[in-house]
């Protein structure tokens, strides 16, 4: 199970690194290469976004990556095929990230089964509150996959506790209001938000949205178990090429 994998890892490391990638951006082949680079650089887990035409919670960088991937011909089937390839090739956990319409249209149960078959370990679906996701949560549980739920700074503690009852693997805590890719201030406020999250769940906490450099990650040590690197990798890759992703990630560790 995902949570025990993370706990194991955390025996050896202060904080784990989860990176994010949009499948098919710039192309499915490149996605494989980027993942390879990331694994080599030492990331602990990777969330792979299946591109969607309406990525409501993503900022401009990831939004455009979604669009480019779709323009380039990325399909759900293509993403599954790639997922299968990477889970075979690399020995870290991979998660799917997507908006609900992708599994819904595919057939939620069929989608989740497919994830299981391909050895994916969990999924993040930012527009699916548990109230709407009963079928999804049920199959995820049956197939021992981790539904990663989200806490935000506006989530009341009662709701955090409620969400935690459905969550498996870890909790994805978003660092601030807004969408992906904007600047986050790593301040005391963030610290107290995380300790609030801690009170609501015994699962490991991942913090995402706006992590850019080592200092950010150092700040998080002791406050969260996982640092999520999203937009920044895409920016680096766009500016300096796929190869440079490795150095960037190493610089964070």
């Amino acid at each position: 199970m995902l949570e025990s994998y993370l706990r194991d890892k955390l025996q050896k490391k202060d904080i784990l690194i989860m990176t994010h990638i949009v499948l098919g951006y710039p192309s499915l082949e490149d996605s494989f290469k980027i993942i390879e680079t990331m694994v080599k650089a030492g990331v602990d887990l990777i969330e792979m976004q299946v591109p969607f035409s309406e990525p409501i919670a993503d900022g401009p960088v990831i939004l455009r990556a979604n669009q480019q991937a779709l323009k380039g011909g990325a399909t759900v089937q293509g993403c599954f095929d790639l997922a299968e390839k990477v889970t075979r090739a690399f020995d870290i956990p991979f998660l799917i990230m997507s908006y609900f319409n992708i599994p819904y249209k595919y057939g939620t149960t069929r989608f989740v089964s497919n994830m299981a078959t391909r050895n994916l370990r969990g999924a993040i679906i930012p527009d699916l509150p548990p109230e709407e996701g009963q079928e999804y949560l049920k199959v995820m549980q049956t197939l021992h996959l981790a539904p990663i739920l989200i806490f935000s700074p506006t989530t009341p503690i009662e709701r955090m506790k409620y969400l935690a009852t459905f969550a498996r693997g870890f909790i994805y805590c978003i660092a601030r209001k807004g969408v992906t890719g904007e600047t986050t201030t790593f301040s005391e406020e963030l610290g107290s938000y995380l300790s609030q999250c801690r009170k609501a769940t015994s699962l490991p906490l991942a913090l995402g949205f706006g992590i850019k450099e080592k200092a950010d990650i150092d700040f998080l040590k002791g406050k969260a178990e996982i640092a999520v690197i999203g937009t920044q990798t895409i920016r680096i890759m766009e500016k300096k090429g796929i190869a440079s992703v490795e150095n960037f990630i190493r610089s964070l560790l």
Partner: protein
Amino acid sequence: MINRGYYGEFGGAFIPEILFSTIEELVEAFQDARNDPTFWKEYTDIMSTFSCRPTPLTFAENLTKHFGGARIYIKREDLNHTGAHKVNNVMGQGLLVKRMGKSRVIAETGAGQHGVATATMAAKFGFRCTIYMGEVDVARQRPNVFWMERLGAEVIPVRDGTRILKDAINEAFRDWVTNMDDTHYVLGTACGPHPFPEMVSYFQSIIGKEAREQIFEREGKLPARVYACVGGGSNALGIFSGFFDDPVQLIGVEAGGKGLDTSRHAARLALNDSSIGVAHGYRTYFLQDEDGQMKETHSVAAGLDYVGVSPILASLRQKGRVRFEAITDKEVLEAFSLTVKMEGLVPALESAHAFAQAFKELPDISGDDMILINLSGRGDKDIFIVADAFADPKWQGFIQKKAEDYSA
């Protein structure tokens, strides 16, 4: 979120967790207002002093004679302040914004009508205002952009995605998840997450309430059929809701665009080109591919080319309570011209869809009956599109002369 806003299998609230409290606050504010016996009065008061409610019901004598059958009545939402039914919704939401103590509003807009209405409401209530509008729509609806800016709103052209209404909706959500503390998202139609479909329909129900009373007073009976165009569905639900419990046929008219056998249309409920999906916060029929990616849509009427449709309408179709039809761009322009020439009414191209469908059906309707068409907005805003459709050389000359002056 006890009542999650389902209509049959449609609706719901598929929202990022960060909006949970915001939506809850809105649901509460709306419920409070609805239960407050003074609220509807406050609403109708402002609608009758700031806009001109009740809007008139016009008997289309010449069209009736022309078709030689059922008597044609027209509900005149075009006479509203800002020129369309959109103002009904925004003024209502504006009152809720005041109740919630927020100071800023945002909105998406396609045709620009909802943007102008929201900017107007913001000016009236003293809210700051940002409008998101697809770049394609900015280009084809520039006059509305101009007025939004004069009204003090910031208009942000959305350059991502297909650069039309749906992309503006996404962008508005992105703003909202950032600024929800002081900001209310004034969704423009009966779509989106709960409580928007219910709330927008509630405010638009003023159309149907008035229309039913007016036509009954005038004719002593109810119309056989009621026609309304369907973009997101708000004007249609507004007028239909007055007749839900009556033996009245309700017909929603979608954009058939370049033709129903092409992919260049926006018919979600009239055809089988759509399928059920989840996007923009709710479940309904979307024009999407097998992977669930939203398709490009098309209509000569910018206000009708949305990929989704109100979950309430989706449910009413399933129940068989509302019938849906689609009208092509070409048919729309004919109905538009006929209506302008015969009645001196200038319908928005959106509204002209409803007229076109009604004209098609008139031969099948008994001469003893009446029909009611919702004239959801006026067509002034469409001058650039209509002039192009008619390839008016004098208009083109005028524009070219203007352009020369600007280059000088």
